[in-house]
């Protein structure tokens, strides 16, 4: 029997984790505020707004090559896949009108929607879809395909101009989520600089380090955007961002800190709070001395008071965590690990002495400087570590430098960032730390951990798999893989008179629903 699925397919476990600095601010299900905010009024068509973003976009605006979450959240407005996510944890057909999955879950048949056009005005054809998917599935030499899960694709065909059939080598329950991969025109060479997609907004211009401008796409197939024009203004300086909001230069801004929020005029803004759905921690390079010594890492955990960090950095907003899982993934989240380590300087000192560092040591914490919450957290942690004799220096670096040195080069001692599961994906949060995994930037290597992960992969039963994941989390906590801190609060400031901002379960910023009210 083939199962026909329209809207209500709820996927919580998908593959692939995207890492982001400030974090993938995907305030999720269970975010504390509902969709409507106080100022309910009639939605007005038209108008323009300026959105403040804290980092410049990647050098390429090609959706398939986008690396950082900050770029992807902007591109979300320009591109769509065959299916697309909704604020309610669903995947709904977008470029496709409908799809069918075969009984063996190896054949996906998509029927394309009529009347979907690229911003260039051309209609989307099956060839464009095949091109887009094959582009992301292509593996050249040692290089992994752009979307790793696509290595599972055996064939992509179109039996007729309105249908695309994808055949997999292995059944994959989570495959559909990857069909959010952007559909791009086959014969268009300038995605890097002037992206063209099918989304509710079209790209207008980009000024390096300054802004990106989008305009409403009139030929959009679905519910059109309310706003005529959106300018993303890049303001890397946290201070300048506040002033820009306060003064009216920016109308909407996400991922703010409570300090930033406290500067704002309450009468002028509606503040919405969700969680970022990320694991903020001081990530430790488990291969670098002296952090390769488990006792040293445990000592660092005992030295830290994460609740104090949350109080100081975000006035108590944010949820303490104890392992690589955040509370929104409630099925997998183990709250008993949160306070596995409590602040105990005496114990920390004793462990350091055992490890051969009775007088402490020098620690360098590399932090992407454009993310104020991470900089602040690092400062508080450094202060707390001082009490046990660890002399921590903060090394602020540019985001690109962070990616190349820390994340790719793994040339660091400790770093404070947030690791995000932008596809609501418990598995990827944990797979990251298996030995030999490409994104295991902390060089965590633990045989038990890897064995548990293999067991979890083979486990068909959801509940049992969740249990195995929890054991993996416990393993990370016990061996002090990292100094876990919190899932940051995602504070969004929206100028009064604007409404319709919706939190998504993944790291996107959907501006199509934002509108002025009368």
């Amino acid at each position: 029997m083939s199962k026909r699925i329209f809207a209500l397919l709820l996927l919580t476990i998908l593959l692939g984790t995207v890492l982001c600095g400030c974090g993938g601010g995907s305030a999720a299900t269970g975010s504390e505020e509902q969709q409507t905010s106080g100022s309910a009024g009639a939605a007005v068509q038209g108008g323009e707004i300026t959105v403040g973003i804290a980092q410049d976009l990647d050098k390429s605006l090609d959706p398939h090559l986008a690396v950082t979450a900050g770029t992807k959240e902007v591109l979300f407005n320009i591109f769509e896949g065959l299916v697309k996510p909704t604020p309610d944890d669903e995947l709904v057909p977008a470029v496709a009108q409908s799809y069918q999955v075969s009984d063996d879950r190896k054949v996906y048949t998509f029927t394309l929607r009529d009347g979907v056009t690229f911003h260039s005005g051309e209609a989307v054809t099956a060839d464009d879809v095949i091109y887009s998917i094959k582009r992301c599935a292509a593996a050249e030499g040692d290089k992994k395909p752009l979307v790793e899960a696509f290595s599972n694709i055996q064939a992509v065909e179109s039996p007729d101009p309105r249908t695309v059939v994808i055949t997999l080598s292995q059944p994959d329950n989570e495959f559909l989520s990857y069909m959010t991969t952007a559909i791009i025109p086959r014969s268009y060479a300038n995605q890097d600089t002037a992206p063209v997609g099918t989304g509710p907004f079209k790209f207008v211009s980009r000024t390096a380090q300054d802004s990106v401008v989008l305009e409403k796409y009139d030929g959009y197939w679905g519910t059109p955007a309310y706003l005529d024009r959106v300018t993303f203004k890049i303001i890397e300086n946290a201070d300048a961002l506040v002033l820009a909001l306060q003064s009216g230069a920016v109308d909407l801004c996400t991922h703010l800190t409570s300090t930033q929020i406290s500067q704002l005029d309450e009468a002028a803004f509606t503040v919405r709070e969700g969680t970022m759905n990320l694991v903020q921690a001081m990530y430790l390079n488990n291969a670098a001395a002296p952090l390769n010594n488990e006792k040293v890492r445990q000592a660092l955990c005992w030295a830290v008071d994460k609740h104090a960090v949350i109080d100081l950095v975000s006035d108590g907003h944010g949820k303490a965590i104890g392992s690589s899982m955040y509370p929104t993934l409630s099925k997998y989240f183990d709250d008993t690990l949160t306070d596995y380590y409590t602040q105990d300087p005496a114990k920390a000192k004793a462990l350091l002495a055992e490890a051969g560092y009775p007088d402490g040591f020098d620690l360098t914490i590399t932090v992407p400087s454009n993310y104020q919450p991470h900089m602040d957290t690092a400062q508080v942690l450094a202060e707390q570590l001082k009490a046990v004799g660890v002399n921590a220096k903060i090394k602020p670096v540019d985001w690109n430098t962070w990616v190349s040195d820390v994340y790719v080069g793994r040339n660091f001692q400790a770093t404070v960032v947030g690791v995000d599961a932008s596809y609501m994906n418990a598995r990827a949060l944990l797979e990251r730390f298996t030995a030999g995994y490409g994104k295991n930037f902390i060089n965590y290597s633990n045989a038990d951990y890897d064995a548990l992960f293999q067991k979890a992969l083979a486990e068909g039963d959801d509940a049992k798999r969740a249990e195995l994941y929890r054991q993996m989390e416990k393993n990370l906590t016990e061996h002090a893989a990292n100094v876990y801190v919190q899932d940051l609060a995602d504070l969004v400031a929206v100028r009064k008179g604007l409404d319709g901002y919706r939190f998504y379960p993944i790291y996107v910023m959907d501006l199509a629903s934002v509108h002025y009210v009368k």
Partner: protein
Amino acid sequence: MRYAARKLLTLLFTMVIVSLLTFAAFSLIPGDPATARLGMDAAPEEVAALREAMGLNRPLGVRYLSWLAGFFTGDLGSSYSYSSSVSALVGQKLPATLALSLLSFSLVVLISIPLGVRSVGRAARRRTDAARTAVNQLLMALPPFFTGILLTWLFGTGLRVFGVRLQLFVPGRLPAFSVHPGGFLLYLLFPAVAVAVPRIAMTVRMLHSTLLREMNQDYVRTSISRGSDRAGVLYRHVLKNAMVPVVAFLAQTMAEVVAGSIVVEQVFSVPGLGRLLLGSIGSRDWPVVQAIVVILAFWVVLAGTVGDLIAQRLDPRLRLGGDRR
């Protein structure tokens, strides 16, 4: 004309040295531009091919010459961080910095010269002299970024003083010159003032002492003792002579104004070369950094030369081909 020719020769020579030093410095930086552009995952063959294509295998001297040739034809290479040419990036940011520097420089000239002359024109008394020195030193001690922050606080955050909202500009929202020239200039006025204040103080002080010394020259004393009007002598003879070192000093001020802009652009979020420079240093986008450094340095050297040439027009000794020093 010999003087002018020599000055121009020196200008060229200095430009060559400046650009060579900059070019060499950024060639010394560890890290391979080809790898930087392709990313860490690039295959060695790809890197080798790109190195060849970028001409990185040629000797430093050859690369410098071709870069310099590119510099004068507007081809500055391409940025590592943006899929864009360096000249396009720089071109976008140049107007704001240019406007800011010129505005700031005009403020210095227009305010400091009258003030400096006034300070001599009146008979100086001990007490006012002490007060003047103190105020002068205090203004000289004001770092542009601090003044900038204060100005932002006073006029940018909507501060209310006695119920009056002082907001005169919106930090981070610089109106485009083509759309709203008045707003553009008003916005830039604040960073320009922040940069100009200490330079004005320095120029006034410099002008003051130069004029005083000149007033004590024999020809002035004689002239005054013969019954000439003090102010008349001051304006007719003294000022002209005193302007020679002042012009040289003002040319140097251009250098400091440019440097000040780099910092102050950050304070006021002005999308200019300074912000691009800092961002590019952060993301190690060396082609952009290199281009901006050389452009700013050229500008400064050029200002210096223009200053020298003006000084020569003012000073007959120099016009005859002698040297000022």
